[in-house]
């Protein structure tokens, strides 16, 4: 911030290494400086500071230790338990071997790195246990069709296995600086996990927040945490839980069908002074955001967990060029000379991983910019609204997790 001088000719007076004295001019400068008023006082101060100063060598390793308490780059956690939640979902309870887990804000996720089917990759999972539970992180995982990693975790991970993950991260949480004390949470399927964390924290810690939870599922049996949510909502006046069923059993009295503006109005009443949070599969964002907007909810009052348009439907996205089909193949050339073909309908990050190129990734939904790579030549498609820094766009950087090849590419990582 402070503008300074062009001082190529330094070092100057009090350069304590004699080899630093480059020329006669420096010696002359030293002589001048010695005549400046208060010179002796400053020199005395330097001497005193050195005498009683700080030995930085004893602080070796300190920065890393402090950082690791909050933001470790990587953690190796042990699966202490595998808890069946529904017929299609289980919770992996992760503990740390040294007993310490970094704190997180309810709603944040960790990114699990693993190798499955011969591919090194990563997936983000929201922590479903509350932050006040400092002994473990619960990751609740639901089986999904073709869900390579989720299904791998459900089928192959057992008690006492180890998982590698990032420190907690993500921006989907209640921010007391500008969110309302009244929260409306809209979840679909496995999108309940961040809300489970938030709701338990509110209940356990007596936080002064009100929650209305609308939780969409096909059937009640699929609703993860249904019994626990019911119990919490019966006990705490500030937490209300409404399951919303797509295919309800005969005579079901609760909410059914889609989470429409009308349904939200019925459950929530006046939407002003409330902050809305949405988490679930792509369909829930596509459907609920317009419904909320139609109710007059401001965009800044709608907070969404990061999500990217699904690859299956990518060619329907606005801006996708008509002449490219999702099965079209293109050639990729990496800066190390490696070449391989990629499919237009598959995110670049996935194609890179399939070819053994590990690009660090976290959110895998275009938001966090971890998986940024430089496209040296060729074109990719990134969905509208992907938050790429302006100068990154200018110099060809893309977020590879949401970039789809439209031409042959040359990539620099």
């Amino acid at each position, binding site marked *: 911030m402070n503008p300074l001088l062009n001082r190529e000719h330094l070092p100057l007076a009090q350069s304590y290494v004699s080899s630093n004295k480059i020329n006669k001019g420096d010696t002359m400068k030293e002589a001048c400086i010695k005549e400046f008023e208060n010179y002796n006082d400053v020199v005395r101060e330097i001497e005193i500071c050195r005498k009683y100063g700080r*030995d930085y060598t004893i602080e070796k390793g300190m920065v890393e230790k402090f950082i690791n308490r*909050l933001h470790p780059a990587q953690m190796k956690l042990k699966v202490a338990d595998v808890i069946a939640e529904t017929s299609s979902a289980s919770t992996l309870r992760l503990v740390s071997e040294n007993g310490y887990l970094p704190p997180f804000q309810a709603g944040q996720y960790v990114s699990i790195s693993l190798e499955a089917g011969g591919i090194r990759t990563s997936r983000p999972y929201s922590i479903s246990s509350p932050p006040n539970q400092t002994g473990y992180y619960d990751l609740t995982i639901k089986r999904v069709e073709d869900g390579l990693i989720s299904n791998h975790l459900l089928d192959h991970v057992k008690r006492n296995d180890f998982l590698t993950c990032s420190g907690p991260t993500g*921006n989907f949480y209640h921010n007391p600086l*500008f969110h309302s004390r009244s929260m409306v949470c809209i979840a679909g399927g496995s999108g309940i996990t961040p809300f489970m964390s938030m709701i338990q924290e509110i209940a356990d810690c007596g936080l002064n927040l009100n929650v209305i939870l609308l939780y969409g599922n096909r059937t009640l049996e699929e609703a993860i945490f249904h019994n626990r949510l019911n119990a919490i909502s019966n006990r705490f006046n500030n937490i209300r839980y409404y399951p919303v069923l797509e295919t309800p059993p005969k005579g079901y009295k609760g909410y059914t069908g889609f989470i429409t503006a009308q349904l939200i109005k019925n459950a929530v009443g006046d939407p002003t002074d409330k902050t809305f949070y949405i988490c679930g599969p792509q369909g829930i964002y596509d459907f609920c955001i317009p419904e909320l907007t139609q109710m007059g909810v401001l965009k800044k009052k709608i907070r969404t967990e990061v999500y990217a348009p699904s690859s299956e439907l990518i060619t329907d996205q606005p801006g996708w060029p008509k002449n490219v089909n999702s099965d079209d193949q293109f050639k990729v050339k990496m800066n190390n000379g490696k070449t391989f073909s990629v499919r237009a309908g598959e995110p670049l990050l996935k194609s890179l991983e399939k070819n053994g190129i590990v690009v660090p990734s976290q959110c895998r939904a275009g938001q966090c910019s971890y998986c*940024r790579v430089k496209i040296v030549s060729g074109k990719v498609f990134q969905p509208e609204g992907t938050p790429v820094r302006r100068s990154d766009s200018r110099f060809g950087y893309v977020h590879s997790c949401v970039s789809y090849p439209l031409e042959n590419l040359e990539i620099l990582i």
Partner: protein
Amino acid sequence: MSDYDVIVIGAGNGGLTAAAMLAQNGLKVLILERHNIPGGSATTFCRGRFEFEVALHQLSGLGTAEQPGPLRSLLGKLKVLEDLSFVEMTDLYRVFIPGKLDLTLPTDRAGVITTLQSRFPREKEAISKFFDLIYSYAIELYSFFRESNPSSGQFPTLKRYAFKNAKEVLDQFFTDPLLKAVLGSYWSFIGLTPDRLPFSYLAICFFGYIEMKPCHIKGGSQSLSNAILNRFLSWGGEARFNCGVKKIMVEKGSVKGVVTEQGDEIKSKFVVSNASKISTFVELLDPEYIPHEMLFDMRGRTTSPSGFCLYMGLDCEPGELGINAATNFILPDEDISGKHFNGIKTLDTKNNAVAFSCYDVADPEFSPPGTCQISLVTLKYAEPWLRLPPTQYAREKYRCAEAMILQMEKICPNVRAHIEEVEVATPLTFMHYLGTPEGSVYGFEQYMKDTLFFQAPRISSINGLFMAGGWVADCGFEPTLKSGTSAAGTILRQLK
């Protein structure tokens, strides 16, 4: 033998300019950066529809195309000017002292003087004389360092003022405490209250910003970092991101190369470290190689504060909130005696002096149409944050952020209602991203004993090891960018 002519550790301002200049001169250069993006502090990040500027408030040293300042020349030599657009700020700063003063200084000398004179008519003459002093001091300072054969008689102003602090000089010239507070308010950006701040720095700030104008970069400081990296790559440079260095290898007093965090050994006879000086010597070198004179020099120096910042995206234009200056200081009162130094040391931000920048005032394209962004800053030592139990971190972060918003509400009562996005950075956040001891954002502190006339050794006794960045000498964009080309210049001269 060597894999590269030069390895540069860290892609901050100093690392980037060093690497670019070396690659431009035909050397084979590798940058190793532990983060996934170049820039260090010179970066931006996205939240919602906003791209937030992290660190740049007022870029110094640019001047105009007709009368280029040192920074413009430097960037020109690195061929990045054509990739960048600069925006000149319309004000030097606005100072707001609740209930007492609200004054905006323009960026020209005459304008600054008349603005001050009409607010403080009784001190009319002293105001002119003060700026005469600022100018003669700065001019003597520049020529002193350029002069190859100086004698003390040529520099009467330096002789008298070089070792005076800002408060001493303000007290000598003025009586009205409000006027002294207005002229001393750059302290809240620098982190040393006027009783501690060398007058030199105050003089250079005024002279530099008035003569060469405070500027900003279109697209934020990431544009600058990306542009320099882009040139570097085009000159055949290589850069590895997500690749930290854990060791600098030394053999018989000379650099041999580095070992990355992944364990790769890469050989090179020259290493430019853009890591903090403390990390470079304490963390990256084996203890037996740490040069004694470096430890001796660092021993007497202290690390500068870190910061507590709110990056706020607002859903309105600055004018709607009455924000008409790009750079703003909100001071709790007119005290310049050092009372507010305690505010830097505490965890609490209540009643701290705060600064905020609203880039959109100078550049309406900075944020999306109909919005603006605010970077609200107070400088803070990390120490109380390091003592905080991690489980209390989030709570304290929001409590302190809340107090910052209350400070800002004194000047913009309605700001909270307009918040669309907000991200809070604490000293621990800076420590996380910069990796500096105690999250320091300015390298070593710049007390009288540390600055200008008492430079630390730039060259270590280890052959081939050079430093660039804010720990070398002075900090800020212009000095750190310059530090890189200085290091590169020395290497090029050695290779000749």
